[in-house]
């Protein structure tokens, strides 16, 4: 467990020395969501209807942006090799790296979402649901994305390939995450959406680090 926390601390420390990489994803999220009203028009009813989908798709793409770097830097300078040979289980270190990725690329989106939601005329309760859904959904995106990042590590055209591999797997998170907010706006019960999202998160938290570790070992061979 200590090794996991050490990995989180290390990755956050590294990210703070290179702030631009974290900020890129956040700026991307802000800019993309702000572009939609400009492309569609300022009609509040329409914006309100498409807000959950837009915020979720933007969050999806923003997390995707940071994924290629998740293991690439450690792979290039050889520290990933050291991790694979460490007495600490690699799965634990990988879990730490995924957690750090979420703290750096996912959590800022969750915190920004209510502010950006205001642009789309969402009311306070809808903003709350949006934040909650993103809070459950963004770790899921980091977990699934890590598998793709490990599979495409050091591969030709890795970035585009990563998107091709990972985006289809993001669909359930998108459906339930955006669906929760939509259902709330429509006055429906949202318990089902959120509990399914939570169930998927638990499932991914269990399997994704394992699959990621297997993929990393293949990549290091």
């Amino acid at each position, binding site marked *: 467990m200590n090794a996991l926390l050490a990995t989180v601390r290390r990755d956050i420390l590294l990210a703070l020395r290179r702030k631009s990489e974290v900020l890129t994803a956040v700026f991307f999220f802000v800019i993309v969501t702000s572009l939609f009203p400009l492309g569609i028009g300022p009609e509040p009813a329409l914006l309100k209807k498409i807000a959950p989908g837009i915020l979720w798709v933007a969050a999806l793409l923003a997390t995707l942006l940071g994924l290629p770097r998740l293991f690439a830097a450690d792979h290039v300078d050889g520290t990933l090799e050291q991790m694979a040979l460490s007495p600490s289980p690699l799965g634990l270190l990988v879990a730490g790296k995924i957690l750090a990725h979420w703290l750096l690329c996912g959590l800022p989106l969750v915190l920004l979402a209510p502010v950006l939601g205001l642009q789309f005329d969402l009311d306070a309760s809808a903003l709350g649901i949006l934040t909650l859904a993103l809070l459950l959904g963004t770790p899921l995106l980091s977990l699934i994305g890590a598998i793709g990042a490990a599979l495409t590590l050091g591969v030709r055209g890795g970035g585009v390939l990563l998107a*091709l591999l990972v985006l289809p797997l993001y669909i*359930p998170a998108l459906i339930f995450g955006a669906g929760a907010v*939509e259902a709330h706006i429509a006055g429906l019960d949202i318990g089902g959406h959120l509990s399914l999202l939570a169930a998927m998160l638990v499932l991914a938290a269990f399997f994704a680090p394992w699959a990621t570790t297997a993929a990393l070992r293949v990549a290091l061979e």
Partner: protein
Amino acid sequence: MRQSIIHWFKFASPQGFYPLAGRMIPWFWAAAAIFGISGLWISFFVAPTDAQQGEGYRIIFIHVPASWMSMFIYLVMAFWAALGLALNTRVSGMMAQALAPTGALMAALSLWTGAFWGKPMWGAWWVWDARLTSELILFFLYLGFMALQAAIDDPRRADKAGAILALVGVVNIPIIYFSVKWWNTLHQGSTINLNKAPSMAQTMLWGMLLMALAFWMYSIAVALTRVRAIILERERHTEWVKHALE
């Protein structure tokens, strides 16, 4: 018992599998032809016109088998992939690689025929129907698998990475299917559906079944042909390949 284990391992090696596949291929082609011809005969000449959809429903005889096969092939592919990861048998990875293009073709066919059915029935080439949407995602999964394998130069690494991806995909497919269905019902999807379109006469079921068998045999025959090519490509420096060629 011991004998039979050795026997199986013989076919699990590329060297044993290459000639075996070569001998099996004509039989699968023959079976595909027989099932295909009888299936087509039923679908055009025996099955009655549907009261609701007229003759347009006959697309079902290729749409449904193609959809079935696209899903089934993914399962088979994941099975070979898992076997390859667990037992480290070389043929498994080659089989998975040989199956992917055929699976993608089936998914593409399913989408194409779905669109050609949708235009007269729904009045649009594409409707976000739950099944079609899932099929589209499955098509993407196939493309991802093939792209990943193509991007990795070392065949052993490509096999392993592809295997992990196929297994992740197989865990996700039910989740994706379920979530798309949920999404579709929430947004009040179309009421008529291609797959349970007509009141399913007995003959229609038979036609569909025969066509599905034909597609199945076809898929095996093509995959075996492709796996033979892959075996030769990967084993070209071994001694047995030199003797196996005529």
